[in-house]
């Protein structure tokens, strides 16, 4: 009896599982660009998120961050800021434009394109300006890539259009399973990542 119940529960979970997401065409940017063209750069923690359908029919997710450190821009440590992302789930519907919306409890380094303009994604270059920090201090970029370095001299100077791969040019990253595999570079931790950002900012 218990076994049947367990089976039916497992089958239901498997059948219902899905991760809806669309995608859009975002231009590739480089590390120097995200550092120098972002209005603000900060280390923060997501303390609340709210998704709602607005009067115009769009779904927006409002993400509240507690600012833990300011690397650039007019923010203050300890203040709370709210960024609006287009997308989310409300009233049974999910609107997705391909943004990865920071989740509650997330700790990260965020590059804000603009606080004043209502952007579809307020982060510079979308996921290219979004870095999650794991509990062990490793930096995660894009689709679960571990950051092992950042080269401010690698510029995106191609004459052709390049769409974003999810990670800015110049951010050196490895898939999680290759981390700490010699002779590949070890992951950089939060303090080193922040030093690289500050260093690039002065260029």
């Amino acid at each position, binding site marked *: 009896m218990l076994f049947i119940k367990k089976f039916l529960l497992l089958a239901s979970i498997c059948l219902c599982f899905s991760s809806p997401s669309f995608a859009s065409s975002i231009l590739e940017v480089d590390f120097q660009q995200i550092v120098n063209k972002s209005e603000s750069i900060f280390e923060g923690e997501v303390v609340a998120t709210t998704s709602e359908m607005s009067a115009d029919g769009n779904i927006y997710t409002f993400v509240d961050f507690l600012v833990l450190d300011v690397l650039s821009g007019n923010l203050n440590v300890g203040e709370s800021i709210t960024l609006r992302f287009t997308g989310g789930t409300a009233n049974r519907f999910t609107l*997705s*434009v*391909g943004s990865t919306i920071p989740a509650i409890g997330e700790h990260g380094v965020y590059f804000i394109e603009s606080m004043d303009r209502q*952007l579809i994604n307020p982060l510079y270059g979308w996921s290219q300006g979004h870095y999650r920090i794991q509990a062990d201090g490793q930096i995660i970029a894009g689709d679960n890539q571990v950051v092992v370095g950042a080269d401010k001299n690698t510029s995106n100077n191609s004459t052709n259009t390049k769409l974003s791969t999810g990670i800015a040019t110049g951010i050196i990253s490895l898939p999680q399973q290759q981390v700490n595999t010699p002779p590949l570079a070890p992951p950089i931790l939060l303090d080193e990542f922040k030093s690289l950002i500050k260093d690039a900012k002065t260029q």
Partner: protein
Amino acid sequence: MSKSHRVLCSRLLLLSLIFMPTQSALSEALGTKWPKTSATFLTGGLPLDGPASGLPGDTETWQAAASEAADSWNDAQSAFKLTTLNAVGNGVCQSFGDNNLIFSQKACSSDFGKNTLAVTAGWSNGSTIVKADIIFNSNKAWGIYDGFLRFTPEDFRRVATHEFGHAMGLAHTTIKSALMFTTASNTYLPTPDDVESLESIYKDEKNSGSISYLLLLTLGIWSLRLLKRHKKAD
């Protein structure tokens, strides 16, 4: 429950998991799909004229280029049918109404930002896509051309073909030669990898999905009978 029942149940569970009607194991599926294997997009929101950049292939209209983008998918595969109609739709960026292709200075009431070429705004209910709008950033310079990709103007038809891929449920791929690779390239038609990914969503769903649901139904009936037997025995 007897040992034989447990063994049978475990086997059915294993079979159900193997044939479960989720997306294919390929990374190219977004996890959402249309309830039918077709969708119609309205192109009446695009300007009637075309670009005037003087590039080869630049002589056609935006609407014709959008239809060509859809047809390039239809010509490459039969798993999903895209139709374009020269009519003005409603409900752009809303959960109801038509599927639209438009140029706009705004993306769903928001600014595009410096680095966004086009947005596919997809609405879903659970894992079912109910609507999709493809919105091109009119603040960028656009053209229509074949051959190698230029930085300016952006090639509307190539981006439209790529965005149609997203609208049908495809994510980016890691295959560099594919149209759904993240970097726009000289590829402007769906490749075998793109087609395979699309077929994995819609064809596999038709086949393995029905098998899986049949197995689950069988198991459900079998479970109820077993419960009845247990009740009678009690």
